[in-house]
């Protein structure tokens, strides 16, 4: 930082980045995926708005959560959506999830020397009908995982997920094995608990919660019927389906 002295040369430069807080998270099940994010947008100690979505539906089977510098995030989502539209024009179908993941990697890496300052989590259903989560760093490194948290409260939420999803540090009773996949209702409870807890302990998390649920083709809505206010976003009940669930979070 410049200190106002003339004794030595100093560089003054415009900083093109900022951090806008918030947290995102995604968990893959056997035949579903849940992608969620809070809706607070902040800069420093100021809450700019209580509702700025960070999670976006891309296709009937892909949902993208974007966290970090909001302006980069919104622009990135816009560009991904336009690339998907061109794919639709060329192939008359939606791009498969793993192809979207690779697309996002190339788009991020193209900006390697002036990166989009965003952490992406892509969730949805693969062509084989399995739930999938892909997580990215700002310059495009990515991998497929079962679950991932990112953003301001990543350090609070990820250990919780490691414990609850991967059963890390849990001693199971003898003879009992851990389930390979959790049920949708269990996953939804874990997601909501993650965000209420992050809201308690992190000042940049809160206000509202948006949870996207992507169900594989042919899978019934079991686990979702009991959920209050689940709203379907897709129009084709025969294909993969996307639902959204909204919850309030504390606003202090």
């Amino acid at each position, binding site marked *: 930082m410049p200190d106002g002295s003339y004794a030595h040369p100093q560089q003054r430069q415009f900083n093109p980045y900022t951090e806008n807080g918030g947290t995102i998270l995604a968990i893959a099940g056997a035949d579903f995926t849940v992608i969620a994010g809070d809706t607070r947008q902040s800069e420093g100690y100021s809450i700019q708005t209580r509702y700025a979505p960070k999670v976006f539906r891309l296709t009937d089977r892909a949902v993208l959560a974007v966290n970090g510098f909001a302006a980069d995030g919104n622009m990135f989502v816009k560009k991904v959506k*336009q690339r998907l539209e061109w794919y639709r024009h060329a192939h008359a179908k939606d791009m498969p999830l793993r192809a979207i993941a690779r697309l996002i990697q190339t788009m991020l890496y193209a900006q390697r020397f002036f990166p989009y300052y965003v952490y992406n989590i892509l969730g949805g259903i693969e062509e084989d009908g399995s739930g999938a989560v892909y997580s990215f760093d700002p310059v495009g490194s990515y991998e497929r995982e079962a679950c991932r948290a990112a953003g301001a409260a990543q350090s609070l939420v990820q250990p919780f997920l490691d414990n609850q999803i991967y059963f890390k540090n849990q001693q199971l009773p003898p003879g009992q094995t851990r389930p390979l996949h959790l049920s949708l209702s269990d996953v939804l409870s874990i997601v909501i608990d993650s965000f209420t807890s992050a809201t308690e302990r992190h000042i940049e998390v809160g206000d509202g919660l948006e949870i996207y649920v992507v169900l594989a083709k042919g899978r019934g809505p079991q686990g979702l019927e009991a959920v209050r206010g689940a709203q379907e976003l897709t129009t084709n009940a*025969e294909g993969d389906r996307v639902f959204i669930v909204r919850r309030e979070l504390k606003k202090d």
Partner: protein
Amino acid sequence: MYRNTYDSDNTVFSPQGRLHQVEYALEAVKQGSAAVGLRSKTHAILLALKRSTGELASYQQKMYRIDDHVGIAIAGLTSDARVLSNFMRQQAMSSRMVFNRPIPVNRLVSSIADKAQVNTQEYGRRPYGVGFLVIGQDKTGPHLYEFAPSGNSYEYYAMSIGARSQSAKTYLEKHFESFADCTLEDLIRHGLHALRESLQQDKELTINNTSIGIAGPASVHEKDVPAGGSFRILEGEPVEVFLKSMVPKETAEAQAAEAPAAEAPPDGAAPAQAGDQDVSMAE
């Protein structure tokens, strides 16, 4: 062979004040199979006749989606259509990128008309060999436009382009006043009747050779259409229910004969021109 002195360069007027290359380009449109467009208060629709080069070949693509709210039907050179439709898609995307607004349909049509006009004036270029019917909906409602390689674009209640389209036009001219208040199903039926007029004697509309493009709310026969009714193309099995709704031609003609001012037979209405026949183009 017959040769015209003023037709080798499209930037040169003939002594009659005509640009022959431009007029030949309009002929290229008439080589393509017919497309019909109609508009009601709630919908704009396209119907097109797809050609196949033979039993073993697939049917050509006649309709393209440009954006959620716009689609086109083409007649003429498919390769030129691809270039132009790509340009339209770019324009539509750019409007969404810069203003987050679906591009107004008239501006989209003007943009390709301007592009086509340049080719009628600059040295060393050739006009596009394709015509479009463009349908779409925006804040000012549903629209139907015709685009021609001459750089002209007009809005219509109903229009047809392509081979033997004069017969379809005759049908549309006779009925267009009723289109405004039509249901979507009635509008499609009128469209199919008009398209049928452009068929050769022994041909008929089937689920294989008919495309239907719709902008506007869903029909009772459609499933999974998003609210707002974004542009969609019906081909194959979904077309059948609409084909079945058509009134057989003999019955329709009998009804027409009963009417006092009967139209001339559709085939007679088409001017006898060399370029207006149902010939398949070399791609």
